[in-house]
């Protein structure tokens, strides 16, 4: 018999009254074969003959092994298949239990974002997008799709974005923060132009294998714990690249969502960029605003995994500096460092701040 305590039930009622828009959940295919119905005969044969060509030696493995359950919540595995592959369990453990009004899907399974063969990556991206509709969105309208693109093939990416633009079941694009080149480079700009045309924000969520570079600038980390902190560093590099290379000057309406990369580093990066901009702006004369102004205008940040400062007021200061309207609640279900909406915030939040972080900011950003 499985029973919740009375105390637990009361807290759940409170959580449900609040209701949340969760900006990071991970539906997973039971296996890559789930994509077969959405691939042409040629690519079906390719998958079955060659499999994936992700950018690491051991396909089907994490680059760094996790402490348990391959980095998943150990209680989130259905009877058959990996964590996140069963809608009923997802409803029971998270969507229904935590009063989730909408959930933004970030599908990472089958390594679509990491595929090396650009032609296969384009076919897989299309398949993964069709799979989101058929397997998830059509079965639960709380789930919102993310357009997966083969980002190193810019032309194919634009085609996929344009195709999904009129489809309101998709609300954003996801890209890998481990690209081949710095993401501010002009060759990626058609993707940003297409995102603005479609009014889709672009989310950057950590992925396992990179575009051929070690996850840190000093080589491959030794431990998983080390690798975990590369998320924030990668995102800082992306922000600096997009700011200085003029992406936000060229595309003032572009909306970037940093998912699961932390946020306490944001003031630090902005202060340093602004300081150097005052002295060295001649190197980047195309920038008409201070770097921090682009960050404040064009970026949003999800909350999980929350920084936990010893003094909760320190975290409040950082959140206030970034802007309460720029923070989006995310749970990361079903990953091991899942943030439960009841416990994620260990400091005082006003009713208005709670409403903004838990749902209203996301509702405005994603037009839900």
């Amino acid at each position, binding site marked *: 018999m499985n*029973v919740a305590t009375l105390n637990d039930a009361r807290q759940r009622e409170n959580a449900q009254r609040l209701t949340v828009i969760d900006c990071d959940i991970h539906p997973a295919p039971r296996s890559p074969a789930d994509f077969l119905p959405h691939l042409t005969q040629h690519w079906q044969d390719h998958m079955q003959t060659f499999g994936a060509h992700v950018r690491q030696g051991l396909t089907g493995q994490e680059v760094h092994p996790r402490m*348990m359950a391959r980095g998943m919540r*150990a209680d989130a595995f259905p009877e058959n298949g990996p964590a996140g592959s069963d809608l009923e369990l997802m409803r029971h453990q998270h969507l229904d239990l935590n009063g989730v009004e909408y959930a933004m899907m970030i599908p990472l399974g089958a390594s679509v974002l990491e595929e090396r063969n650009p032609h296969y990556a384009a076919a897989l991206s299309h398949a993964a997008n069709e799979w989101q509709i058929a397997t998830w969105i059509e079965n639960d309208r709380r789930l919102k799709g993310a357009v997966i693109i083969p980002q190193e093939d810019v032309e194919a990416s634009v085609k996929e974005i344009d195709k999904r633009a009129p489809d309101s079941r998709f609300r954003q694009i996801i890209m890998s923060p481990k690209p081949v080149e710095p993401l501010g480079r002009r060759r990626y700009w058609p993707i940003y132009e297409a995102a603005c045309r479609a009014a889709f924000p672009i989310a950057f969520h950590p992925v396992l294998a990179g575009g051929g570079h070690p996850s840190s600038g000093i080589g491959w980390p030794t431990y998983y714990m080390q690798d975990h902190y590369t998320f924030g560093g990668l995102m800082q590099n992306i922000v600096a690249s997009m700011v200085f290379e003029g992406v936000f000057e060229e595309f003032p309406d572009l909306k970037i969502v940093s998912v699961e990369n932390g946020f306490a580093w944001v003031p630090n990066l902005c202060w340093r960029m602004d300081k150097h901009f005052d002295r060295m702006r001649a190197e980047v004369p195309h920038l008409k605003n201070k770097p921090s102004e682009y960050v404040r205008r064009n970026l949003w940040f999800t909350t999980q995994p929350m920084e936990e400062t010893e003094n909760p007021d320190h975290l409040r200061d950082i959140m206030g500096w970034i802007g309460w309207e720029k923070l989006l609640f995310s749970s990361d279900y079903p990953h*091991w460092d899942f943030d*439960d909406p009841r416990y994620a915030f260990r400091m005082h939040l006003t009713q208005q701040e709670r409403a903004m972080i838990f749902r209203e900011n996301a509702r405005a950003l994603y037009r839900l």
Partner: protein
Amino acid sequence: MTLTRHVVAAVDEIAPGTSKVVDVNGRAIGIFNVNGEFFALLNRCPHAGAELCKGQIVGLVQSDGVGDYQLQRHDEFLRCPWHGWEFEIRTGQSYCDPRKTRIRKFDVKVEPGETLVKGPYRAETFAVSVEQNYLVIEA
């Protein structure tokens, strides 16, 4: 509050190194067999509310220096299925901060829990007794 005694399982239902979750008046309680001794914990992690007893039963990894790994106290700890906090099954106490254990590096005996640095959390425990091959808890 008066505690009531509940017969919750037969002794042979729970082998050493395993556990069973039982319902006691609407509360889910995990019963653990740690090397032949029985202990009970509320099935709720005090950190963030996970069903604690779905976690893995583990030992304690200690080290006398870089590259040294010693797995000690087999099956005496429970690792929460969500964020990985480790709780001593005997006491429900969470432990963290390896500094204290590293200082005692010439002592290779099994350490009692008190020599570790206590973490911020404590899982709720219940008294378990064995009566005529049945497990009885007071809750």
